[in-house]
């Protein structure tokens, strides 16, 4: 069987370096208020973009199931804030859609 080690090492490096570099270099410097404000928005903008990307890049037969899973998890977490419950509800939601429509 083919070894995927070169690919794994390459992927590891391009993933780890962006995680490492800002953390080690930015801790030395002081950051201006505008930059701080910008960084403060990152969790919201990136999560929102990842969610939308999840739906629009899903395979055609999984689009609805993905959207329903995300919607269910979002709704439950909005109501009671429990992440575990929300994730399970999301999985069950998409499971039901797959079984009903596909």
């Amino acid at each position: 069987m083919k070894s995927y080690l070169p690919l794994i090492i390459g992927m590891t490096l391009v993933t780890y370096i962006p995680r490492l570099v800002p953390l080690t270099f930015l801790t030395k410097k002081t950051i201006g208020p505008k930059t701080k404000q910008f960084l403060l928005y990152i969790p919201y903008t990136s999560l929102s973009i990842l969610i939308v990307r999840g739906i629009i890049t899903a395979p055609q037969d999984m689009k609805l199931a993905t959207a329903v899973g995300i919607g269910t998890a979002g709704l439950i977490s909005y109501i009671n804030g429990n992440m575990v419950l929300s994730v399970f509800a999301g999985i069950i939601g998409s499971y039901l859609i797959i079984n009903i429509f596909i």
Partner: protein
Amino acid sequence: MIKNKQIKHEMKEGLLVALPVIIGYLPAAMAFGLLAKNTRIPFIDTILFSMMVYAGASQFMALELIKAGVVNGSIILATFLLNLRHIMMSASLSVHFKKFDRRYLPIVAFGITDETFSVSSFNKERLTLPFVLVFYLLSHISWWLGTIAGYLAGEVLPASLQSSLSVGLYAMFAALLFPEIKKSNQMLLLSIISAIIYTIMHYSKIFAPGWDIILGIIISSSIGIIIFKDEVETVKDVKEVEN
């Protein structure tokens, strides 16, 4: 003695905050293990993907590209673009990790994922080194343990459940974001703006494939600075970051 007690307490807090991430990771990691097996990736390589790369979305993408026969160089480039957003997350956390012993930063950096980053950002006041180390380490372990479980036993599950497990990753993104936007109308608005901007960028194909995520994050966050210029809420949040 008091210091030890404090560290123990912080470690326990780290464990508690890790639990929802662990439980969210397990189904998604199982889905990855299962899919890797179906893509005929050897067992050891599958574990190494989760132990070393440790980035859910790009691991799933890599499987699709491997199946499509794409060469390694292109998969690595696509991974780089997809994970470039971690620069923003790492920069955002650096503000809070300033006080940490610098020797631990390479370990902490390895543990930054969308999920651990989001949970960390939403628990700023608790970010001590023992807290972060326990939280990140347990999250990492659950990712590759879940992968092993999926590879070995995933086939037992019905096919439709197998597909819905992979939705777990996105369900977790939603479960992280929604309680936070409930607290702030500004962040609700900013999240909606980000979603619209990304959608436009994705379908209009203005930028080369892969660049849409990182540019979407930069553009949306910049819009946030422009539209929330003088708002009290934002200023208060920025102050919290400074402390």
